[in-house]
């Protein structure tokens, strides 16, 4: 099998021509109504928080975010994706990308038709929630997400709301945030290729997708239950306000619950990663109780809990976290940080529990997609 034999729509002869003509100018593709649709959510405000001041965290500039999007679009086009639906924003990505796409159009380079979702940007996380919902309703085959752990969490929360995890739209993450435990560091050109292979049906769900774990957090009070999720870590702190959101001070850390913990991770999950690593695809998670009180501390652990911050963390105990078993938080009042950001405060009398859920949502497994595609010869061109 080779790319040109894999069922491109008839009017994609212009795209096939690109394989014989690797250097610009390349012909443009034309979208058809039934063409595979890929969604794209690029958060313009990830990697903007206080950690740039306190820890020299990186700042991926908008211009580079747009470059990342352009590279993904170019390789999506190369696999035959002709329609991409994007989240609009008022922070500069749409404006800059539109200028670039016009230039690419002038240069006759091959790009999918990019449309923006019909939503009025508020420049808050609500844009991400709404965009994910609209992409689900529009029937996107997959969603490419540019952001940090927080952005990915917002997309997943919306996609799995009321949906069967086996049918929720898969996401492909590109790390542009601060703490990048969930999205992997990947070149967007390759992500575009992998997502394109899946979206155009050349790779099946079994071949392309991987299941993921998450944490269900619930806070029960007399007034009802508040619920949220975390993809990597739910941390409990004795801070009792949200403030600038990011959690970077080890003082006040009470406990950390983790879906997976890799020794090479940055952020709160590094605590688990350096205690008892758990792979992204392994069953179960890890619950770690930290020791603010020196009398209860078993040992200290040096962990990079935020970019540029290797800090000593007092460990009281840690234990496996099997799926489905609620872990109660024994702290009277505090804040729950989800994937590194303080999100939910709780007060005396409220009961906080954290429960690990397996097979909660699907991601496009980029490495596996490319491996399967290579083995099957999907990138070989017909002469």
């Amino acid at each position: 099998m080779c790319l040109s034999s894999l069922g491109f729509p008839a009017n994609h002869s212009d795209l096939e021509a690109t394989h014989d003509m690797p250097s610009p100018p390349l012909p443009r593709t034309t979208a058809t109504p039934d063409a595979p649709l890929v969604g794209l959510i690029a958060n313009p405000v990830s990697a903007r928080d206080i950690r740039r001041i306190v820890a020299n965290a990186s700042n991926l500039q908008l211009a580079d975010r747009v470059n990342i999007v352009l590279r993904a679009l170019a390789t999506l086009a190369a696999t035959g994706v002709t329609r991409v639906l994007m989240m609009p924003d008022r922070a500069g990505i749409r404006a800059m990308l539109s200028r670039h796409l016009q230039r690419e159009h002038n240069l006759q380079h091959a790009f999918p038709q990019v449309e923006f979702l019909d939503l009025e940007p508020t420049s808050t996380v609500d844009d991400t929630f709404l965009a994910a919902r609209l992409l689900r309703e529009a029937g996107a085959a997959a969603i490419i997400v540019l952001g940090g752990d927080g952005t990915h969490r917002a997309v997943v929360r919306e996609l799995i709301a009321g949906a069967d995890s086996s049918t929720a739209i898969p996401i492909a993450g590109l790390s542009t945030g601060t703490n990048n435990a969930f999205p992997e560091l990947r070149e967007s050109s390759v992500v575009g290729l992998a997502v394109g292979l899946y979206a155009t049906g050349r790779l099946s769900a079994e071949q392309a997708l991987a299941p993921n774990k998450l944490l269900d957090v619930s806070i029960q009070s007399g007034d009802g239950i508040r619920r949220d999720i975390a993809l990597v870590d739910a941390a409990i702190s004795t801070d009792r306000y949200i403030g600038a959101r990011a959690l970077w001070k080890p003082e006040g850390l009470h406990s950390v619950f983790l879906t997976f913990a890799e020794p090479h991770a940055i952020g709160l999950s590094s605590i688990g990663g350096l205690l008892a690593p758990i792979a992204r695809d392994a069953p179960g998670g890890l619950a770690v109780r930290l020791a603010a009180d020196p009398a209860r501390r078993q040992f200290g652990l040096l962990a990079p809990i935020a970019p540029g911050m290797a800090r000593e963390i007092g460990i009281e105990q840690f234990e496996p976290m099997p799926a489905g078993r609620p872990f109660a938080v024994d702290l009277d009042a505090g804040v729950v940080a989800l994937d590194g950001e303080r999100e939910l405060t709780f007060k005396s009398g409220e009961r906080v529990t954290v429960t690990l859920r397996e097979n909660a949502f699907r991601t496009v497994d980029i490495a596996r997609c490319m491996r399967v595609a290579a083995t099957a010869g999907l990138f070989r061109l017909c002469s």
Partner: protein
Amino acid sequence: MPDNNPFPLPKDELLDAYRRMRTIREFEERLHVDFARGDIPGFVHLYAGEEAAAVGIMKHLWDGDHIASTHRGHGHCIAKGVDVVAMMKEIYGKKGGACEGKGGSMHIADLSKGMMGANGILGAGAPLVCGAALAAKYRAKQKGGPSDVAISFVGDGASNQGTFLESLNLAAVWNLPAIFVVENNGYAESTARDYGTAVDSYVDRAAGFGLPGITVDGTDFFAVYEAAGEVIRRAREGGGPSLLECKMVRFHGHFEGDAQTYRAKGELEDIRANRDCLQRFTQAILGAKAVSEAELQAIDRDVLGLIERAVAEAKAAPPPDAADLTTDVYVRY
């Protein structure tokens, strides 16, 4: 059991923050009414809706710290401690005003409070702040200890001015204890930001000069307070300049009389209902039972009384004398 205050400020400081924010709000809403009556000469640009940024930042400052403000300067003045009656007299163009009634709304200054002035020229405060920060750096070197800081406020529109960009460069190469606050309310006068700004991220602008920059929700007092605390501490301790973008909303037009036809339908109603920083702050501190309703009502009464007195004194005060025309044009510092 923990006490009822979960916030990073003690109760008296929370009440002080509330008083400052409430004073700004009432001051501006009163000007909105009085300007429409034709009582006030010149132009006024109101800060209502943006109070959390000024107060969240200024709570970390002392009198030796300097700020340079914008057209929309009343909130900065009040938050920095400039006398409200003197401000009102100034805006009315009367003797006894902060600048003896000769400057008006866009030129209120009080050097005793470190307030170097609102400014009629867009982006003109940023270079002034570099001077103040350089002086602060030298003084700190002589006396030791933490440095005073200097803070430049600009709007999202003024951040396109060359003066602002040159100041970022100067502050970076001289490692000044300067902070550049971009108050981003989404509109440069009537031009939406994404229409008139090539690179929309002010943090990216800072990065272009090698400065760290961060963005916070400027309608959340506690977010501003925490972020400002870190950038100011960094500057005081020799960590150099940084940029703080506060995303915020303004309740009134660019200037009083602006019909705001550039706004989306329902936009103003939405921001007043859902993004009112004073309301958010009030709900947070009342909700946590950190303060009581009676305590806030007592402040409200004080503030309304103060504004009433300020207007009455401003109206009663005489205009400046012609003989004083050139007085204070040049001032020794």
